[in-house]
C-alpha cells in the first residue's frame, strides 16, 4: 500500500482512538487495522493518550449524603430487623410442634407449585426455542451483535413477521424491585416499550421474544434499560445495551 493509499486510514486513527470517528468510517478503518501492523501500533499509542484523559479531571468530593444513599442500597440495609421474643418452655414446645406441622404442609404445597412452575417454564422455553429456530431459518431475518461491557449476544430482527428476539449472555441479576425493559427507538429518538423481562436465575443466558404492536420497520434501534418492577412509561434507569438497526 502506498503512502497516499495509507494516509486516509492513518489520519482517522486519532479520532477512532478517542471514540469520535463517524460511524461511516469505522468499518473501513477496522478492516484496514486487521492487516496493518504500523497502524495497530499507532492506534495503541493514541489509545494510551485517550486513556490518560480518564485521569485529567480534578478530583471533586461529592456530598456526604451520597455515601448514605449508596449505603442504603447495600444488602445489609435491605434486611428487616429480627423481632425478639421471650418464650416459656411449654410455649416453645407447642410452638415448635405447630411450626413443624406447618412446615410439612407447606413443603407439600411448595413441591406441587414447584412442579407446576417447572412445567410452565419448560413449556415457555420450548416455545421460545421453536420461535428462535423459525426466525433463524427465515431468509430475511437479520442478526445483529449485542456487545456492552460483559453483556454479549445477538438480536434477531424479523421485520416481515414483526418479531424481535434477544439472546443475551451475562445479564446481571436484578433486585426484586427491578426489571429489564425493552425499548424500540424511532428516528426522532422517541422510545416505545416492547416489554419487560427478568433473567432466569441459574442460567447464563437470557432469551426474550417480543411481538410489538407497532411496525418494526418504523424503528431504527433497540435498547434495554433497568426500570422499577412493572416497567416505566419512558426510560428512567441505567441503559444495559443498545443496538442500532
Amino acid at each position, binding site marked *: 500500500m502506498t503512502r497516499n493509499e495509507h494516509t486516509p486510514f492513518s489520519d482517522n486513527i486519532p479520532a477512532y482512538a478517542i471514540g469520535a470517528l463517524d460511524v461511516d468510517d469505522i468499518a473501513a478503518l477496522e478492516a484496514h487495522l486487521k492487516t496493518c501492523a504500523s497502524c495497530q501500533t499507532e492506534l495503541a499509542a493514541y489509545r*494510551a493518550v485517550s486513556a490518560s484523559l480518564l485521569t485529567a479531571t480534578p478530583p471533586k468530593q461529592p456530598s456526604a449524603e451520597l455515601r448514605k444513599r449508596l449505603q442504603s442500597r447495600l444488602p445489609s440495609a435491605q434486611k428487616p430487623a429480627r423481632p425478639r421474643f421471650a418464650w416459656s418452655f411449654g410455649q416453645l414446645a407447642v410452638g415448635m410442634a405447630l411450626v413443624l406441622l406447618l412446615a410439612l404442609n407447606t413443603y407439600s404445597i411448595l413441591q406441587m407449585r414447584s412442579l407446576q412452575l417447572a412445567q410452565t417454564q419448560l413449556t415457555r422455553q420450548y416455545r421460545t426455542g421453536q420461535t428462535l429456530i423459525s426466525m433463524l431459518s427465515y431468509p430475511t431475518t437479520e442478526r445483529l451483535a449485542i456487545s456492552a461491557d460483559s453483556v454479549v449476544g445477538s438480536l434477531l430482527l424479523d421485520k416481515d413477521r414483526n418479531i424481535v428476539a434477544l439472546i443475551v449472555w451475562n445479564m*446481571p441479576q436484578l433486585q426484586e424491585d427491578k426489571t429489564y425493559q425493552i425499548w424500540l427507538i424511532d428516528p426522532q429518538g422517541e422510545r416505545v416499550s416492547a416489554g419487560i423481562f427478568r433473567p432466569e436465575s441459574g442460567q447464563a443466558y437470557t432469551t426474550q421474544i417480543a411481538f410489538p404492536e407497532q411496525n418494526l420497520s418504523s424503528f431504527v434501534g433497540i435498547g434495554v434499560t433497568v426500570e422499577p418492577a412493572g416497567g416505566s412509561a419512558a426510560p428512567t434507569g441505567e441503559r444495559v445495551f443498545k443496538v442500532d438497526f
Partner: protein
Amino acid sequence: MNDTDETALIARVAQGDERAFLMVYDRYTSRVHGLTLHILGDPMLAEEATQDTFLKLWSRARQYLAERGPFLPWLLTIARHVALDRLRLEARRPALSDSNDPEEVWQTLPDLETVAEESRWRSTYFAVQSLHPDLRQVIELAYYQGLSQSEMAEVLGWPLGTVKTRLRAAMEKLRELWNEK
C-alpha cells in the same frame, strides 16, 4: 495501599464485603465524581452517575482482573460510560459506537501506577489545559461529551475537515506531551 492490598480489597468487594466496598468508595469517589461532574456539568446528575458507577462496581467487581491492569482506570472507564449514557439520555441523542470499551482499554493503558496519583492527574490535566483553545475544545467534546466529528462540526459550526484536522492535531500534541513524561 499497594497493588496487592488493593487487589485483595476488590476481591472482598466481589464477595459482597460491604465494608471493603465502602473503603473503595472513600478512596476513589472524588476521582469518579470529578470525572462525572466534568462530563455532566450538573452536581445532581453527577452524583447520580457517581452512585450508579459504584453500584455497577458492587454488582460487577468480580469482572475486574488485576492482571489486566490497574483498578482506577477500570473504574473511571465505567464512570465515563455511565456519565456519557446519562448525557445522551438527557439530550435524547442516539448513542455512538465507542471504541473505548473497557475490554479494549486494558490493552493499551499507560503504566499509571509509576506516577504518584496526585501528580498524575495534575500532569494530564495541565497537558490538556496547555492546548490551544480550539484544540482543547475538540478534545472536550470528543472525550467528555462523546461527540463524533460530524456532531462536533454541527455544534461548533466548523467545516468537518477543520474538525478532523484539529482533533488530529490535539491528539498528536497530547501524544508528544505524554511521551515527554
